[in-house]
């Protein structure tokens, strides 16, 4: 049995070792190199060509912060939605299963950009109309905050994908683990909390990290719904100065720094989660 599980445990490593740069150690080095290269490039551009690069950076600086805040807040909410959705989708109750399946299928079938536009432009008039109809003043004067509506949109959109990730993780835990926990007298909830979810989480950690990086990039879509993120600030700078090439090179490099850094953090977390395997 031991030899068997050893082989199973080692298999991905052995397969990966044949792909150059794909072993965790190599990959981390390559990432470090790339990350540092991009940072150095940005610093060089700013120092040697302050006009326009330093001007661009100063102009979009507040956008960087907005991008990070929108991404991180949405991501925390996405993980919560995904956790609840994944649990509901693997639950015995067929109504909760059906409801969450419906949510996932509908949301996955609609472009994220369309969803974001819907929440910001299409929903508020409906709420206002409803408020007038029912005579509720707070609803009738409802004015959407762009950042909050963007976070709502990203959370609902990405929550559907995260639900699927968590469901896959829960289903990847062998049935015998739940049976062992239940046979000891643990309730379904205890078994989930102490046995199933910790193992599922380790399995899906790479996928969760991937979702974070994709969310970071897709957060640029919120520039369309009045959020002054990095992309929107870039567009504003371009229309003021008419230097599109330098502007978008700078914006692209800034995104690259954020995504490469996130990828490093994710791989570090993955390594930490391997204890006991």
């Amino acid at each position, binding site marked *: *049995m031991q030899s068997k599980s050893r082989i199973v445990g080692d298999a991905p490593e052995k397969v990966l070792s044949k792909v150059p740069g794909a072993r965790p150690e190599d990959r981390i080095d390559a990432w470090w190199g790339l990350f540092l290269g991009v940072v150095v490039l940005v610093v060089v551009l700013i120092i040697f060509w302050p006009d326009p690069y330093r001007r661009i950076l100063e102009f979009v600086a507040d956008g960087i912060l907005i991008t990070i805040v929108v991404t991180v807040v949405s991501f925390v909410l996405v993980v919560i939605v995904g956790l609840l959705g994944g649990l509901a989708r693997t639950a015995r109750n067929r109504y909760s299963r059906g409801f969450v399946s419906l949510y996932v299928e509908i949301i996955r079938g609609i472009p994220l950009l369309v969803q974001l536009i819907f929440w910001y432009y299409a929903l508020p008039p409906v709420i206002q109309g409803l408020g007038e109809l029912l005579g509720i003043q707070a609803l009738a004067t409802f004015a959407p905050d762009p950042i909050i509506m963007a976070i709502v949109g990203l959370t609902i959109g990405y929550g559907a994908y995260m639900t699927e990730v968590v469901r896959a993780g829960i289903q990847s835990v062998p049935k015998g*683990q739940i049976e062992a926990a239940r046979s000891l*007298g643990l309730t379904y909830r205890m078994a989930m909390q102490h046995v199933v979810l910790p193992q599922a989480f380790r399995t899906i950690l790479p996928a969760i990290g991937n979702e974070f990086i994709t969310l970071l990039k897709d957060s640029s879509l919120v520039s369309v719904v009045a959020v002054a993120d990095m992309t929107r600030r870039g567009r504003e700078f371009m229309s003021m100065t008419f230097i599109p090439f330098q502007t978008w090179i700078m914006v692209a490099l800034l995104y690259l720094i954020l995504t490469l850094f996130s990828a490093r953090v994710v791989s570090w977390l993955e390594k930490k989660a391997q*204890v*006991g395997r």
Partner: protein
Amino acid sequence: MEPIIRIENIHKYFGEVHALRGVSLDIQPGEVVIVIGPSGSGKSTLLRCINRLEEYDEGEITVDGIPLDTAANINAVRTEVGMVFQQFNLFSHMTVLDNINLAQRLIRKRSRAECHRNSLALLERVGIPEKAQSYPLQLSGGQQQRVAIARALAMNPKIMLFDEPTSALDPEMIKEVLDVMLDLAKEGMTMVVVSHEMGFARAAAHRVILMADGEIVEQGPPDQVFENPQHERTKAFLSHIL
């Protein structure tokens, strides 16, 4: 004496398959019962019905006076009935010690120190105290199964169920697991064991039950069943494994 396990006319269907066909069985406190039979005869299914890991479609099971009907009763029974699986099913993300601690802490509400003391004593008893801080996949199959037994014993169960505990083990590791089980039997634990280990059956069993096609075909003391089987099914089965 009042039986500690009372199984009355259990029927179980897997879709079209009639896996258990009206099985009735009483087991006395302290009794060691070995269930044998060809694969697909329903022996594991019957065992899994006793702590309701498997739901049954008809009949009643009462364990230690508690009928297996409501969710609360089922959980109450499970805290008194330990189970050991063919595939060990240790929690792979926890150390050996945490595996044994978990249910004591959550269900028995013992303090951390008390759990540790208990768990270490149990590891001593199954002969691998030095593995307390190891993770399950670092252990051999025999060691994993002994940890699984210790984990079940940590709840101080009145009954232990064993579902083919040595079938997934390499031959040289079978004995170390059977020795632990033999000690348990000597101490008077009520045990229901699905296994084809004849040596263990002769040494420990009070009763051997032969199942075939979802029914109990023959039962009796090991000597009688093995040396002087009455039914054709028993003779045919024993000729395959002896």
